[in-house]
């Protein structure tokens, strides 16, 4: 039984893949596929992180700045002083959890808190790495640039991210309780569970995925930059929505989110293959997004009538 909500994301990805292969048949190879989807891995991780936040009814406007900070820590501190580096990464996750607790306990709007935090993350990133540079820990590059037989690393990584996120969010009891928070907050607190704790946990999970996104990004680019991932904020939100998630009500799909991230990355390559001037690419990417969302709206309406 396949979830009908996943049909549209899968379909849009398939159409894009077909279009890319048709434009550029040489992409239909081990190296080609790896190149196409390589940069989708950190975006997919950031999208899953954003999805967890959207799932509990919030939105994270600091995702790009946070992933950039992680990239700076990974490139500047982790290779030289692993102990300090890991401690800082763990501290970042704990800060995320604390933000979640704060948002729930004080009933603050997440959009404001995360917007404010984005400046703090950005400032910290500049402090850690004032100019682009640093290096990737050797083991990290080895993982990200590994060449397993038959299937490229980018595909293996994407599938594993989707599988892990699906098991954690959709199948485990822990994930069910987190999703319940977005579905009906009052039901959760009526059942005698601490909503502060649950929201803190959701933010911690998002923090872990965002940390992985920053590390994966450094593993690919082998250096860091305080502005390296600023696009990720909007890309991750778009990816969640593209993947069949909704802004309210806790209805999300981890597999869809990963597919959404892949689709967005591929849309960029597709436009390059069309030889579209880079000036127009962002606009064209937006047009693709609108197209897919419009299709989704039509499908929903047809569903409702049926």
């Amino acid at each position: 039984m396949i979830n009908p909500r996943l049909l549209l994301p899968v379909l849009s990805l398939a159409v894009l893949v077909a279009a890319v292969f048709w434009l550029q048949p040489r992409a239909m190879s081990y190296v080609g596929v790896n190149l196409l989807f390589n940069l989708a891995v950190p975006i997919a991780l950031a999208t899953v992180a954003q999805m967890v936040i959207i799932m509990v009814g919030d939105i994270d406007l600091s995702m790009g700045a946070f992933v950039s900070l992680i990239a700076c820590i990974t490139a500047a501190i982790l290779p030289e002083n692993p102990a300090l580096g890991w401690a800082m990464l763990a501290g970042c996750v704990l800060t995320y959890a604390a933000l979640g607790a704060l948002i729930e306990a004080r009933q603050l709007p997440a959009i404001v808190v995360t917007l404010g935090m984005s400046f703090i993350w950005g400032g910290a990133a500049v402090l850690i790495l004032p100019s682009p540079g640093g290096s990737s820990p050797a083991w990290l590059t080895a993982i990200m640039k590994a060449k397993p037989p038959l299937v490229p690393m980018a595909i293996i990584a994407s599938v594993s991210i989707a599988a892990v996120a699906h098991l954690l969010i959709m199948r485990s009891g822990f994930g069910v309780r987190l999703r319940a928070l977005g579905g009906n907050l009052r039901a959760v607190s009526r059942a005698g569970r601490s909503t502060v704790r649950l929201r803190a946990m959701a933010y911690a999970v998002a923090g872990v995925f965002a940390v992985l996104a920053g590390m994966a990004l450094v593993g690919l680019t082998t250096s860091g930059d305080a502005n390296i991932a600023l696009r990720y904020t909007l890309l991750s939100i778009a990816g969640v929505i593209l993947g069949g998630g909704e802004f309210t009500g806790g209805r999300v799909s981890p597999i869809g989110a990963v597919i959404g991230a892949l689709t967005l990355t591929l849309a960029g390559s597709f436009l390059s293959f069309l030889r579209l001037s880079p000036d127009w690419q962002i606009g064209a990417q937006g047009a693709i997004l609108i197209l897919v969302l419009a299709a989704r709206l039509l499908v929903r309406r047809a569903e409702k009538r049926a």
Partner: protein
Amino acid sequence: MASARPNTTGPEPVVILDGASKSFGALRALDHVDLRIDPGECLGLVGHNGAGKSTLVNLVTGQFAASEGRVIYPGAKDHRQAGIRAISQEGMLCPNLTVLENLQVVQRDLTGWSWRRLAARRIGAALDAIFPGHRIRPEMPVFDMTLAEQQMVEIAIGFAQGAHPARLVVLDEPTSSLDASISAQLLAHLRRFCAEGGAVVFISHMLGEVFEVADRIVVMRDGHIIADRAAKGFTRQGLVDAMGHVADESHEPSALRIRALGNRSDAILRTPEGVEARKGEIVGLAGLAGHGQAEALARFYLAQSSDWRSLAEPAVVFVAGDRKRDGVMPIWSIRRNLALAALGHLCRLGMVDRAAENALSADWQARIGIRTPDMANPILSLSGGNQQKVLFARALATTAAVVVMDDPMRGVDIGTKTEVYDMIRHEAAEGRTFLWYSTEMDEILNCDRVFVFRDGAISAELEGERITEANILAASFEFGDAA
């Protein structure tokens, strides 16, 4: 009455309320209530709006702590361990989860790798036992289900097996979205559950159902239990009489106030539900809360006011009861809050005329008695009653011919109430029409005509001397037998 001591003879009771009180600010929702519920008992709980039913239920189910007195669960440390479950009226499912996942939210012992199998078995067994022949699968997402199916799932969760078996289940209007045959299945299950030693508290506006299932009936009024005896000791009429105030001298008969409102065919407005009003008439919408009155008002108001080209002078104005949600602008001054609806004629060339705004608010401060040294103070500096007066002034400051009021006196002190009643009568005499939804009986008794709502439709239209508490209560509760 029940003894407050846990160690009486016979089976240990499930819960004991010992002089329990609950206050919300100045309002005493529950006043020194003693109640004891034994295993195997099926308790029917009846009362009109604000009688204290939900507060009582929330104390028993551990949602509120008592302000005074105690709630005791003999042999258990809290309500959860005592096996007390609540099935509330207001949808406590997470629509984004499946049926079995909703059980995970409520139960704590669904851990480990195979929790899904265990949850599916528990909820499936409960559904099979209560609603044989149902077509609900545990993997179904809740948002795909009908309202009735969601209600069935909620009931099944209440009875499902868990770490602490259900010993007392509180059902608040459980049959409101179920059809007759499913309701009958539920009632049969309740009787079976009690026969096997479980206890039930059953709240319903369908008195037929209460008589069918309850072996003891508790009647509440004004935060007190005013009658508590075996169901056989009540007749239906006696039950309705008990819910009302027996001696009510303060109420002047409406007949004395009957005014010349013209022929009934002169209605200036009529809603799809059938509520109609003449010029200058105060029309009350009564009945138990949540039976479609607020929705009827909102539909009427939005149909009159939601328009692309909004008129400078609205034809209908709205006085909110839920001040926070649809009333005050929390960071604005009192003056701005008051002048909001009349801005259309306070503007000159698109700019707000400050002098006119000041004059208007000063005028209304004097007329309606808003107690503040300075109308430029923030609205939240006022007490709740005075905030409500500002909302009244906002509506009355327009030239709108119709004023729609959505239970506007919620949580307002008696002094303010009296002042506002006078204001309303005065305005009505000058030709304004009021549509007034109220959950409070003494307000409804102030109306010229009353429509009583039940299950989203009008169940009675009362006028003049027929507007009595007994008639309104009778129309609020369903007499017919549950099929």
